[in-house]
């Protein structure tokens, strides 16, 4: 399925990441957004508010982030693609509904334009401190997907990808931007609608008698219907059976929650998205995501110039974590260097998956600004010394 041309502003634009995210959402077919203002994410919804009435979308500024994060799920069950947009403090408030979306298999997108925390922190300055929260922030076991753009162009592209992944697997997908990317203005090329492919909702096309809303086929993702189509579905955050009815038994829990887990982990190779540069034959691999995939480049180049064999593994999708690839590399290289605008989050996963074969060195900081390339360079150099 291709994008609806009515919503696609084909052409070259000089816009920031927040605005590009808005355009990505519209191109992806998103037609419902509920949000609550918070720096540095507000520009996304401000543009949505302006653009939506022209493309058949509905935007509502809700009373808080809790309301926003559940209103979008109501809209999804009414048949729309929907997203909400926030930053750290608001993201924390949305955690209960991340779990609800996971449990009810409601496809939806949460955009988090990360700023420096904890708490109110530095509201106008960038960080990547919510990465583990995107993995573990709601109670109970669930799986979600997190995608990290590094430019306004990617804010456009990956917003579309986030919607596609969300529809494909019926999970909440996090677009983990940061203030730097959100407020950075660059050229964004919006392709013609027919070059934008979308994953449509996985509609069930049969008749109500044959429909069990939470019975999945071999790919573990059930088909959906929407309210108003006469299916009289029931959707609950309680543990439920295939009909969607509450079932307070351990076997029901096992069946449901295991499937919710497996539908992501067993597809993790398909979901994985990373970009490699000179990783083959590398001695040191720098693992980056989001804006660090750019701020690390001067450091990588300098190190290469000085003769170090430095590869660059840039994670586009951070969750599910590409365990397999890290494990493979760990047995071939001599060190990982992981620059993060936090005090060490994704590096823990790199460390775990490198299984002691090679060290994983964090180049972290407490946030508020992007890395100085020098620091990453030193991290690369030190990772060699460390041996």
């Amino acid at each position, binding site marked *: 399925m291709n994008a609806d041309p009515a919503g696609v502003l084909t052409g070259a634009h000089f816009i920031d990441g927040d605005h590009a995210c808005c355009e990505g959402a519209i191109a992806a077919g998103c037609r419902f957004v509920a949000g609550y203002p918070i720096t540095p994410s507000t520009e996304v919804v401000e543009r949505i508010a302006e653009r939506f009435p022209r493309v058949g979308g509905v935007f*509502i500024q809700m009373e808080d982030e809790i309301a926003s994060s559940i*209103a979008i799920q*109501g809209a*999804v069950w009414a048949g729309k693609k929907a997203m909400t947009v926030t930053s750290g403090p608001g993201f924390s408030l949305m955690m209960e509904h991340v779990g609800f979306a996971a449990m009810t298999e409601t496809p939806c997108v949460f955009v988090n334009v990360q700023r420096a925390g904890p708490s109110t922190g530095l509201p106008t300055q960038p960080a990547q401190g919510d990465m583990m929260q995107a993995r573990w922030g709601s109670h109970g076991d669930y799986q979600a997907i997190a995608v990290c753009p590094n430019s306004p162009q990617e804010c456009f592209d990956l917003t579309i990808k986030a919607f596609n992944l969300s*529809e494909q697997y019926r999970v909440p997908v996090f677009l983990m931007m940061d203030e730097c990317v959100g407020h950075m203005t660059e050229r964004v090329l919006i392709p013609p609608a027919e070059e934008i492919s979308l994953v449509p909702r996985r509609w069930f096309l049969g008749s109500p008698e044959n429909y069990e809303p939470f019975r999945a086929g071999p790919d573990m993702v059930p088909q959906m219907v929407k309210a108003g189509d006469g299916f009289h579905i*029931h959707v609950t*955050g309680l543990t439920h059976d295939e009909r969607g009815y509450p079932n307070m038994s351990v076997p029901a829990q096992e069946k449901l929650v295991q499937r919710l887990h497996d539908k992501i982990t067993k597809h993790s190779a398909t979901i994985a998205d990373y970009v490699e540069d000179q990783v083959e034959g590398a001695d040191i691999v720098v693992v980056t995501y989001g804006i660090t995939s750019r701020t690390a480049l001067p450091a990588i180049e300098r190190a290469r110039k000085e003769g170090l064999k430095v590869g660059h593994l840039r994670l586009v999708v951070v969750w599910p974590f590409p365990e397999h690839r890290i494990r493979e590399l760990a047995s071939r290289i001599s060190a990982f260097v992981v620059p993060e605008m936090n005090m060490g989050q994704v590096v823990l996963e790199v460390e775990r998956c490198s299984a002691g074969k090679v060290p994983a060195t964090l180049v972290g900081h407490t946030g508020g600004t992007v890395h100085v390339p020098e620091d990453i360079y030193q991290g690369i150099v030190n990772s060699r010394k460390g041996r």
Partner: protein
Amino acid sequence: MAEELYELDENLPVNPVESLLRMDRMPHIWCPGCGIGTTVNCFAQALESSGLDLRKTAIVSGIGCTGRVAGYLNLDSFHTTHGRAIPFATGLKLANPELKVVVYSGDGDLSAIGGNHFIHAARRNMDVTVILINNSTYGMTGGQVAPTTPMTAVASTTPYGNFESAFNLPALAESCGAVYVARWTAFHVRHTTKAIKEALLKKGFSFVEILAPCPTLYSRRNKLGDGLAQMVYYRENSEIRHGADTKDVALEFQGKIIVGKFVDRVRPTFGEAMDRYLRERLGADYLPATAGGA
């Protein structure tokens, strides 16, 4: 002729509310003498007689004993999170304006944790019907104090009596802008049915508060007897006062219960105002939302 009546008949008439219920889920979880089931009869009858398209009617509940209502109704039904039925319903309604969206939930759910959504939806005149079952307590979790528990009443978290005033919910709803506000009790089944029907047919934020016994965790603990005793109390202490000033309808511990239709007024719904303004400002550029789209 008498005999005729007693002939075994495979085609015994079936309670018409059953067609609106998921009978495969019976028996329900509600205690003996719980008033929630009674209100479901009223809702079913009201919905039936409203002429609304059942395919286009969705029901949303939060969490609680009343929150289970959604799961027993044979409609598109959503059992959401505690307190969040109204914002879920907001998304549902705005994303498909053809739907009639009903929120059916408990006093704790809608007025404690969910209080903010309640007042904002009323303010926006969001086009949803809210049915709130006021059993003066949190039933599901074991009878804790609620914002609707009258002063002095005992609850598991106010073992020495409650020292907070209860909300006057009709007054709260009116002050925020609800266009239809009524209160009845589970005893007043005909009135309740009529009120729900009116609410369902009203455009905008309509609100029906229904007092119902929770014998297990409220009445017994407060030595008020069982569900039946509460129902008898409702019969004997309710006063129908249509159009009463909502300032005068606050509830007190075993006090008089003012019931009736208090507010019935017209103002543009969120959707109507949105459509009007956007059309005014954008003219032909305005593309209103339609059903579906994902």
